[in-house]
């Protein structure tokens, strides 16, 4: 954009310039000129206007016209295309940029990968429900926890159980087999969900939030094994954590316990909330999920 300032015409008095609206002086300006668009689609618009100080300013705007698609338009619509501007759009500043194309690519975000069904999600949601109580069968599949049917390697549900599975010993590539299979139909899959992409930490965090119980008012010398011992009678515990002060190395007085089954966690809360432990009264409650 080129801006040249020229001295205002001498027959004008400064006083008048101050009083009158700039619009009233528009007749003094040379008319708007439009060049092009040429074969490269370059269009130049030369406009003249008065700036705030009353100087005449030449504004050249160069734009490239791109033809998008050959849309079918009605005759009326084509006619409307050439309507002259009105209202505030007449005196619109060239640089006002009321209309902008987003710099950000927006996608229609799918709630789940295309091709997957909601029922399957449900199956994968409680792979542990079929586990029942510990003991009994020798052959227990580590993927779907079915007893006596197959070994882990032969598990027919391994694809389904993959996202919420708690075992971490399998290779990361197997993790993505379910999503990549459903996403081959040409639709966009965000990079984070593509095959070969690494799982983000959100999965991990969510795992920590499931059936998580917060224990507060612990005595200073309570350690994780103590807490595990305390909570084990209520059901299988998947994770125990006690917050330790970095500097002093002592307990900060609170911790988290995750249960594999929600009902167990509920029973533990009912029983242990208000329970006297090491001369202190425990406070046991559901851990509130983090806000983000």
């Amino acid at each position: 954009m080129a801006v040249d300032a020229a001295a205002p015409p001498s027959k004008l008095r400064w006083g008048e310039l101050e009083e009158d609206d700039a619009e009233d002086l528009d007749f003094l300006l040379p008319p708007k000129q439009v060049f092009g668009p040429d074969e490269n689609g370059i269009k130049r618009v030369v406009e003249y206007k008065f700036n705030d100080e009353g100087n005449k300013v030449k504004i050249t705007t160069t734009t490239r016209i791109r033809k998008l698609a050959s849309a079918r338009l009605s005759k009326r619509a084509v006619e409307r295309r050439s309507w002259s501007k009105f209202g505030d759009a007449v005196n619109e500043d060239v640089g006002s940029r009321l209309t902008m194309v987003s710099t950000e690519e927006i996608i229609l975000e799918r709630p789940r990968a295309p091709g997957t069904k909601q029922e399957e999600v449900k199956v994968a949601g409680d792979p542990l429900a079929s586990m029942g109580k510990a003991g009994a069968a020798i052959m227990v599949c580590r993927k779907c926890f079915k007893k006596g049917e197959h070994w882990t390697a032969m598990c027919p549900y391994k694809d389904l159980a993959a996202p919420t599975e708690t075992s971490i010993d399998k290779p990361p590539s197997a993790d993505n087999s379910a999503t990549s299979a459903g996403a081959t139909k040409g639709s966009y899959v965000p990079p984070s969900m593509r095959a070969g992409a690494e799982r983000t930490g959100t999965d991990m965090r969510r795992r920590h939030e499931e059936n998580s119980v917060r224990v507060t008012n612990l005595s200073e010398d309570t350690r994780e094994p103590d807490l595990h011992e305390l909570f084990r009678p209520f059901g299988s515990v998947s994770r125990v954590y006690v917050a330790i002060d970095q500097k002093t190395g002592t307990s900060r007085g609170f911790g988290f316990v995750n249960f594999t089954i929600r009902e167990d966690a509920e029973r533990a809360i009912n029983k242990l909330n208000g329970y006297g432990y090491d001369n202190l009264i425990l406070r046991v409650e559901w851990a509130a999920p983090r806000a983000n």
Partner: protein
Amino acid sequence: MRPILMKGHERPLTFLKYNRDGDLLFSCAKDHTPTVWFADNGERLGTYRGHNGAVWSCDVSRDSTRLITGSADQSAKLWDVQTGSQLFTFNFDSPARSVDFAVGDKLAVITTDPFMGLTSAIHIKRIARDPSDQTGESVAILKGPQGRINRAVWGSLNKTIISGGEDAVIRIWDSETGKLLKESDKEDGHKKPITSLTKSTDGSHFLTGSLDKSAKLWDTRTLTLIKTYVTERPVNAVTMSPLLDHVVLGGGQDASAVTTTDHRAGKFEAKFYDKILQEEIGGVKGHFGPINALAFNPDGKSFSSGGEDGYVRLHHFDPDYFNIKL
């Protein structure tokens, strides 16, 4: 897709409307000037200056020559679409909320808010072909609903008027006699104020959005509930694709609470649902305030959303949108 952002309004958007050919997009906002844009590239064509209050809704005649707007300055105005000149002003004693032209553009329905002891009302006005013959007399005035009537539209063949508002009841009125024909059931109906109401292209069914975080699809003739779309945010705006069986809901947390939480918690996406299966297809992000207005281009290939943030976002769909499978 790369949406086109249109920043012509200084205040929150309230309503969006495409003309029948889908080449013009009319936007209303709480600033006082409705604006018309070219719907293909988002260029501003003009503004309609003259209102002295927030403009709540608008409608354009089938031949795209007349625009009607309803405003909080207690008036509804008729405009010449091409020049932006005012043709007529209907004056009321309370703010005008919803406006809608009847089929044939000979009648218009205008709702007014409860104000200073006055109850809300639905006014039916005759629209003269020649603006110089236009009068402000009402053909009929319908009264009864408690609270604001947020939307009133014409039913099939102009025989009925469908209204919905703050009392969460959908009513169908006889437009000739002004009698109340049907009311939505307590069990089926919305539990909180109805914020928006959109008819399908053929007029056989319509969609209502409500602050009870759901949208419902109704049969126009019998007022039976067909489908319910449940979401996790108050619904401020609804629209239906004229091309595919898709329903779009817009909303978000209450505008006054926006600054108190993270923007991701506000849920300001436009949510797409499958009309028949009632399942969510996806969401289109972008606004940083609740969505107040949604409109689908009559060709079904683009839609626009207007937000509390003052932006209109015009989305032209990518080709893969048209063969999305659930």
